[in-house]
């Protein structure tokens, strides 16, 4: 009798403990938002929000803190990275799961997993020493004047960082599509590519989409590797051969100016807040799309 009561008590304690840990984890987002808002407040009370967000004039010493060039820089680099990474990743994942013999799969998979674990500063150095000169040559071949520190270099480095994650998840997802479905479609006369395109990819689409979103969130917040190759000029880019200055780079580069001007710290915190809100907007939008995809293509 006593023993059971003790066990129930233990059970209750364990449940409560796990509940409080869960609440703590969920509250972290709120704490971060409130903390950033609190630090960004001085500048928000002094300057109208639309000027801060949509002005492109960044001259802290004159107390001009327009963030639009940085927001656009972030979007340019991220979108270019995804345009490169997504088709490449999905086709690689399809090949690995549907076409590749086991020997190649067994060789490539661990290599991709290793790629995912490389620290970002190493990617940055690789970008600096290899990608920047190559992009500079490409620009010259196209008759464009660029020193190679631009949106395209940033996008390529980011794409390289993103695709191990997207490939690895997409490949797992594609393999979960039941084997019977492949066989059924091929029994009806479909070629292997038709079966892959019309049945497998469609069935796996919610999972692949989720993988792409995960890659995107890694890309948008990546700091060090991008900062090293992207040129860091506070002006909105108008082509992939223009330099850009993404928000994470702004925050990292100017960390040291925080003490120099009272409003500087506040402006950087606002930049962090804007980045956070951007990521939140994309996450919510992705969630909505994901739910619709699942409803439409669910395998059940």
């Amino acid at each position, binding site marked *: 009798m006593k023993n059971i009561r003790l066990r129930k008590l233990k059970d209750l304690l364990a449940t409560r403990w796990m509940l409080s840990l869960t609440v703590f984890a969920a509250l972290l987002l709120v704490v971060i938002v409130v903390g950033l808002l609190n630090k960004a407040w001085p500048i928000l009370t002094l300057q109208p929000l639309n000027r801060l967000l949509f002005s492109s004039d*960044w*001259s*802290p*010493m004159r107390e001009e803190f327009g963030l639009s060039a940085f927001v656009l820089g972030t979007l340019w680099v991220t979108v*270019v990275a995804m*345009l490169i990474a*997504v*088709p490449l990743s999905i086709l690689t994942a399809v090949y690995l799961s549907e076409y590749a013999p086991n020997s190649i799969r067994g060789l490539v998979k661990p290599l991709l997993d290793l790629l995912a674990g490389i620290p970002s500063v190493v990617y940055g150095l690789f970008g*600096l*020493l290899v990608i*920047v*000169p190559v992009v*500079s040559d490409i*620009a*010259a071949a*196209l*008759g*464009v*004047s*660029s*020193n*190679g*520190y631009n949106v*395209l270099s940033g996008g390529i480095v980011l794409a390289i960082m993103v695709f191990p994650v997207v490939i690895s998840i997409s490949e797992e997802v594609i393999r979960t599509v039941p084997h019977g479905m492949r066989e059924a479609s091929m029994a009806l006369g479909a070629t292997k590519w038709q079966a892959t*395109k*019309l049945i497998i*990819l*469609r069935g796996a689409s919610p999972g692949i989409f989720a993988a792409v979103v995960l890659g995107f969130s890694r890309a948008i917040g990546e700091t060090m590797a991008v*900062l*090293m190759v992207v*040129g*860091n*000029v506070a002006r909105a880019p*108008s*082509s*992939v*051969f*223009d*330099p850009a*200055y993404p928000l994470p*780079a702004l925050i*990292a*580069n*100017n*960390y*040291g*100016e*925080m*003490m*120099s*001007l*009272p409003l500087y710290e506040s402006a950087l915190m606002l930049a962090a807040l804007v980045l956070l809100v951007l990521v939140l907007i994309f996450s919510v939008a992705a969630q909505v799309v994901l739910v619709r995809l699942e409803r439409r293509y669910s395998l059940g």
Partner: protein
Amino acid sequence: MQRRLASMGALRLIGCLVLLLVLVGISGCGGGAGDAYAIEVYTRADACGAADTWALFLDGHKQEELGGTGINSDPGIAQAVIQDKRGIGFNNIGYAYDMDSGLQVSGLRVVPIDVDENGRIDDWEEFYGTKHEVATAIAEGLYPSPPARDLYFVAKGGFSGPAKAFVRWVLTDGQQFVDEAGYVRLPDAKIADALAKLGEAQDSLTGTITITGAFALYPMTVQWAEEFRKLHPAVKIDISAGGAGKGMTDALNGLADIGMISRQIYPSEEASGAFWVPVTKDAVVAVVNADNPVLEELLETGMTRQDFIDIWINATLTDWREVTG
């Protein structure tokens, strides 16, 4: 059938977007077709003393007003200019000259400054061969100041514990290593002032000293730390470089015992409790690629302060042939 069309549409859409991007990329900045004489301007992206000092030299501007592609860290700028024949950048002398040999870093050339603006480099303006020659010119005031400048150690409120002992040693016995490291000695009066400011000894000689900040001071501080540890093996010294801005912010936040600073200290930082002493001097120099298209003329004519202003601030000087006239 409809779904099949939808999925094909999605694939096509991605294809079109890629194509569009390439087209935008090409048309976006056509024109200036990779001119071999166009000047590629580099500046520092991270908050640092070199850029602040260089901007001060160019008519008292701030780092944020310097144009050009922003590159992270001193070694980063050196690397960028080494990779770009048309490039121009600025570096602390510690990164324009090789640490061991004292010669100019291979792939880079230091641009002589035409101080009296007579259109050529006179004998007295020619002192860029080795780091030692430049250091001598800085000490004698031949090289303009700025971009020559004092380098500082900073702490919040004041130095304490082993950090204080280290700073005191740097200002006394440590000065003997300054010349050999390619830096410039402070005048005796300045050292005496710094020692007076540091205050009376109550130094402890155990524990860890954390030092962060300016790339300019990093090699010097590493050497000082090695010599100091020979005398006091119980003291551990951690040094990392991350720019003067990081040094200041870390020192004021208590993350570092000593911040290495390579620019002036702003009034707002003083108000936040920044306590500093000068420890040595160096300078920022302009660097170009060793295969610069007009290198020979450039070394004869040098560049004036106005040339630099027109390159970094006004962006009106964009062709190497115009520099050498």
